[in-house]
């Protein structure tokens, strides 16, 4: 059943990507949104909602990272740090930890703001660095943040993290034990993230990012405030991750430092690489594909093989192998990803012609 939803969503994304008619695109997107909102209510159960909600959170994270890596071309290998900051914001301010029980909805915004702040704090001194140096510094940051959460046992519960987080309420109605509300919040979040991504891409800022990605030196000499644009990319990208973190923590009712390691950062980079960096629809497809493989396909193959051959395989062992193979395979054979950024190519082509005419 989960495959049906994933398949429909991916097919719709591909259709949106292939169609050129703006109205058709919007129609497909609305139909998909309606289908995803209503479908699981009739054909679904808690397990389906849970996987869909996780998938939706990952789509949000991937869209956020796409702003940093895809739009601005800054390889961030520590993106999970902002996810952790979002999750711990909820963990520390809506749990018995300090006896604080701030409302979920307020914390969504607070986490976004905090993550953005830390994005800017990390960005300010390091964004002068180029390419792979920046990647390594962000990686270092990604290692430090969970480690700090782990070490400050007094505030964060240490290696065990914080459990029994508050169950959010919606106008006085508790979410209860159901995971359904998280799915719908994440859907709204995705819709917002898509809308923001799209508008940003077309904006002045988005064009500066693209210019920086293509040639930083040229962008600088064309009068773009490179540092400011990069900072904005870091902060905005991080804020998506902060919101994702709150959703993730509230759904799990738990935060612990080992949930936000380097693997998570690489997983999200893999989603981008698989789908096509810079292409919003491609990124959605990439993250859906990888989440479904991780949370539905692998366990299923696992139990199927176990049942038919009486083995006790543990296919969760090969997650890394799969991410690794995706990164290597895509880079070697199709570096632009499954759904390359057609619009961007057309745009660049167009720009080239315009220049030639002028």
């Amino acid at each position, binding site marked *: 059943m989960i495959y049906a939803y994933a398949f429909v969503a991916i097919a719709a994304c591909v259709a949106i990507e292939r169609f050129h008619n703006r109205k058709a695109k919007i129609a497909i997107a609305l139909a998909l949104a309606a289908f995803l909102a209503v479908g699981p209510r009739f054909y679904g159960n808690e397990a389906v909602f849970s996987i869909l909600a996780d998938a939706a959170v990952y789509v949000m994270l991937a869209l956020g990272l796409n702003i940093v890596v895809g739009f601005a071309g800054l390889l961030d290998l520590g993106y999970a740090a902002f996810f952790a900051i979002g999750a711990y914001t909820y963990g520390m301010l809506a749990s018995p930890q300090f006896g604080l029980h701030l409302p979920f909805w307020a914390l969504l915004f607070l986490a976004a703001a905090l993550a953005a702040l830390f994005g800017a704090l990390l960005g300010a001194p390091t964004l002068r660095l180029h390419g792979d140096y920046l990647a390594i*510094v962000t990686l270092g940051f990604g*290692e*430090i943040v969970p480690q700090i959460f*782990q070490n400050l046992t007094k505030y964060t519960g240490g290696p065990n993290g914080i459990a029994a987080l508050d169950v959010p309420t919606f106008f006085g109605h508790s979410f209860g034990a159901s995971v359904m509300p998280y799915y719908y919040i994440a859907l709204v979040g995705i819709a917002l993230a898509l809308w923001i991504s799209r508008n940003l891409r077309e904006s002045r800022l988005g064009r500066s990012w693209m210019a920086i990605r293509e040639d930083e030196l040229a962008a600088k000499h064309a009068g773009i405030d490179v540092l400011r644009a990069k900072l904005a990319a870091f902060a905005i990208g991080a804020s998506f991750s902060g919101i994702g973190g709150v959703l993730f923590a509230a759904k799990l009712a738990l935060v612990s430092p080992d949930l936000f390691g380097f693997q998570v950062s690489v997983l999200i980079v893999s989603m981008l690489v698989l789908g096509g960096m810079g292409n919003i629809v491609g990124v959605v497809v990439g993250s859906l594909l990888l989440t479904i493989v991780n949370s539905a396909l692998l366990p299923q193959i696992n139990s199927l093989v176990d049942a038919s051959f009486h083995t006790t395989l543990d296919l969760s062992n090969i997650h890394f192998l799969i991410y690794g193979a995706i*990164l290597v395979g895509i880079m*070697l054979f199709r570096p632009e990803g499954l759904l390359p950024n057609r619009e961007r190519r057309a745009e660049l082509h167009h720009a080239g012609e315009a220049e030639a005419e002028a």
Partner: protein
Amino acid sequence: MHEFLAQLANGVELGAIYALIALGYTLVYGILELINFAHGDVYTFGSFTALVVLVALRAANLLHGAGLILGIVAALVVAILACALLNAGIERLAYRRLRKAPRLAPLITAIGVSFMLENLIELWQGAAPVPFPNVIPNPELEIGALQVGVQQIVVVALAIATMIALHFFVKRSRLGKAMRAVAQDRDASSLVGIDVDRTIAITFLIAGALAGVAGFVGGVSFGSAWFLNGFGAGLRAFTAAVLGGIGNIAGAMLGGFLIGLLESFSTWFIGGQWSNVAVFSVLILVLVFRPSGLLGESLPEKV
């Protein structure tokens, strides 16, 4: 004082291992401007090949007297060869096609290779740390107030001997000269008749061999091997290479020892759980304030 000297010895021992790994990063970076992210896992692979050889020899009851020394040499040689071939194989299969690709492409590929290696080593040897055969007898020697194990001396001596050999290879031999030429200007060196692809392959072989030595001494020194060892050790070694000035061989050695000392003293003063934070903070500070490292020279940005 006693404790201080003990930490100093520990730091030097750790530093020797980091320096060996850092040399692999620096050689490859010098020639390709690629952070060979998989290098740390090649080091892990070296630990495990040495471990497997030693365990097999011990099971065959061959590790006595002269057999012990031969066995240690055999384990070291096998680890060196295996890592050299693995590293060169990675270059051939994964990096060579990407010579002309945008710069992030080979880095992402290297991360992918690293994940695959980690997972394959986990499938091969399991997720738990495996004890490394305790082959080098380890009586404590007292030199004044300093207490060091024989093992520590062997580890540091082996590492320093390897570094000296590497230094002379790079500075004196024809191949070393070719490596330096390719690092400076790939096109120009191919014009004067240097086989660039072959030189790069040899660089990877040598970097791999160094990781093999590091894998062996790391196994001896830590007393175990674990499939994720290479991730942390690799990052520390990379930090060391950057601290010393990436691309610079003497810098990698200096950086390695400094990071080793930093780790052992930060563990002593503020606790082992903060050593990661200390090391990465140093990395960030160095990159921000002196990106060319301690011994590196800053190069103008290539356009």
